[in-house]
């Protein structure tokens, strides 16, 4: 056994738990998970059947944690886990799974397949079988601080722009505030309007907030590639900053996996509960709306539809908030046939969009989203995840569709009611 394989195999033994054992024990090979996966439905290739992507993990579980499997291995009947197997499975585990968890919703015996793919990636990463694109992103995040190589000076430059445009101050490294705002490098590089929108909204709401110069990046390549050690290192930057600044709530940006990383995996990576709350920006906005601190005026009458980012909706529980918020600013919202917890993934999540190798398959899988958008007949698509947004834009361009993609937070900011500027507000 090579050192790589040994490390990977050991990692797979580490992740085995009772849910995984229950899931593998229950699978009846009914194939329904395939029907829930756009990588299968759009390619028609049965190897993209979700449960099939877990074969290496299944073998480790069977041979390491069941008596029958141990006996089978003893007599040489059990299929071995080899370097070749892991290499062969790497495209299935990374390229054809966005961890969207749709299969986990339809499995009749209740198998949470996305949960297991996430665990399998621990072994794949540890054995050096992660795709190059994700390895690079992880290296940049650890070494530079951001998967896209964004450094604090780039953020500072954006802060200057925002302050100039809005005439408002963007607070940095302020202790004792209500919100610590995180961003994704995608937002820093491609969607600077996010920071501007937040600055205006928080200003109108009279909320105290801050950015942290040593913890502005919310994305976490460690989660996507499946290396908890790396994920922990990245998460702890945020945790340390938030605790140092003694903020009440850490606000995850419009980025799906970032929310998962800090909200759901973060405490488990840290091995403790946090001294602060973690919320997605849409949750924060909806709370502000409910307390009357967020008010908008005017309704956009152009038809719109909302794309649920998987990690925020299905895997994160933020389903109603975006709809309430969208109702505030748009009068003609059409839902896709399957939405909310049963939405179809854009195909770029779970590190797929950072994995160049997966590009053709990702675009093929996008056909599902394309069909959903076409079915609504609208030309404006709203979402709340920078990664989804990039994937959607690429996909729409690839298929030559003339559709505008908007971020929900910006859309809200555009319709802020200027009449009700809070007392301490500056010029609009």
């Amino acid at each position: 056994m090579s050192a790589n394989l040994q490390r990977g195999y050991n990692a797979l033994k580490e992740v085995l738990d009772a849910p995984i054992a229950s899931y593998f024990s229950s699978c009846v090979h009914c194939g329904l998970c395939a029907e829930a996966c756009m990588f299968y439905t759009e390619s028609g290739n049965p190897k993209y059947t979700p449960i099939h992507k877990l074969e290496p993990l299944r073998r480790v579980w069977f041979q390491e944690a069941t008596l029958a499997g141990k006996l089978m291995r003893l007599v040489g009947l059990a299929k071995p886990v080899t370097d070749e197997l892991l290499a062969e499975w790497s495209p299935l585990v990374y390229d054809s799974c966005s961890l969207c968890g749709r299969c986990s919703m339809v499995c009749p015996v209740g198998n949470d397949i996305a949960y297991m793919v996430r665990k399998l990636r621990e072994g794949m990463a540890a054995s050096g079988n992660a795709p190059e694109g994700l390895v690079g992103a992880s290296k940049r995040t650890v070494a530079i601080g951001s998967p896209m190589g964004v450094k604090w000076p780039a953020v500072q430059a954006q802060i200057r722009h925002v302050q100039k445009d809005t005439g408002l101050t963007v607070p940095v490294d302020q202790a004792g505030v209500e919100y610590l705002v995180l961003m994704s490098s995608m937002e820093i590089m491609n969607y600077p309007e996010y920071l501007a929108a937040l600055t205006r909204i928080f200003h109108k709401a009279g909320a105290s907030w801050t950015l942290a110069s040593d913890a502005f990046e919310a994305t976490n390549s460690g989660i996507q590639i499946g290396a908890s050690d790396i994920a922990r290192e990245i998460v702890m930057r945020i945790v340390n900053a938030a605790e140092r600044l003694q903020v009440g709530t850490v606000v995850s940006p419009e980025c799906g996996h970032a929310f998962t990383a800090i909200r759901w995996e973060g405490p488990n990576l840290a091995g403790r509960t946090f001294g602060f709350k973690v919320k997605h920006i849409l949750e924060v906005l909806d709370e502000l709306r409910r307390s009357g601190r967020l008010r908008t005026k005017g309704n956009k009458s152009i038809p719109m539809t909302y794309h649920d980012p998987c990690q925020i909706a299905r895997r994160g529980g933020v389903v109603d908030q975006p709809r309430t918020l969208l109702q505030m600013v748009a009068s003609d919202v059409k839902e896709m046939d399957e939405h909310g917890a049963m939405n179809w993934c854009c195909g770029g999540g779970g590190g797929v969009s950072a994995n160049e190798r997966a590009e053709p398959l990702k675009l093929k899988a996008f056909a599902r989203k394309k069909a959903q958008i076409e079915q609504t007949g609208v030309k404006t698509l709203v979402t709340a995840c920078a990664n989804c947004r990039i994937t959607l834009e690429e996909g729409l361009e690839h298929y030559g569709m003339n559709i505008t993609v908007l971020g929900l937070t910006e859309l809200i900011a555009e319709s802020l009611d200027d009449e009700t500027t809070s007392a301490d507000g500056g010029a609009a």
Partner: protein
Amino acid sequence: MNATAMDLLIWARGTGFSLALAIALFGLTLRVFEILSLGRKHDFAPAREDSPGSGLRTVFSRSLPLPGMAQKSPITYFGGYVFHVGLLLVIVFFVPHIEAIRAVIGLSWPGLPTAVIDMVSVATLLALVAVLFDRRRNKVKRMLSGFGDYFAWGITFLPMVTGYLAFHHLVLDYTLMLAIHILSVELLLIALPFTKLTHVVTLFLARWYNGDWFGRRGIAS
């Protein structure tokens, strides 16, 4: 006198059944220990309050297809429903079976008329054939299926078909068919803990864990 059908029946009802039950119970107990001993890490992430989902909810809700899914794989769903419900009705509401269950657990309940059981059996057998056919025809299922899948199908089909043939006095002498029927049930019992048929027990755990995970995150799964 050589071994007769009656000898086989006596063995099947006696030693055979005790052995099969022992192996099934031994195996299932072992499996539950195997599974639960792997444990589950404490989740430090605070769960959402007033979640619409829960493990218990999912244990039940997963029995129903999500909107749109049934159309995507009708044979899997309807074939699956018919044979699962059919098996349940035949196993639990055919009077001779109730008597057998009574001998094991001491409880009994009213049965269904044999005409009803007969109709359900035919439907169940047809559904089982349909799902086997679909397993060969559907490329996903064909790719996923190995010996274990066909074996599991076989040992589920066998008790159904032998029971049906015995009841209708077809093919073989009743005593022999009854003995074969009971032996096939024993094969099923023995295989229960060590094949995918274990899902009859573990699916409750799986659904629970799944529902619990989603429930903590505020999703009714």
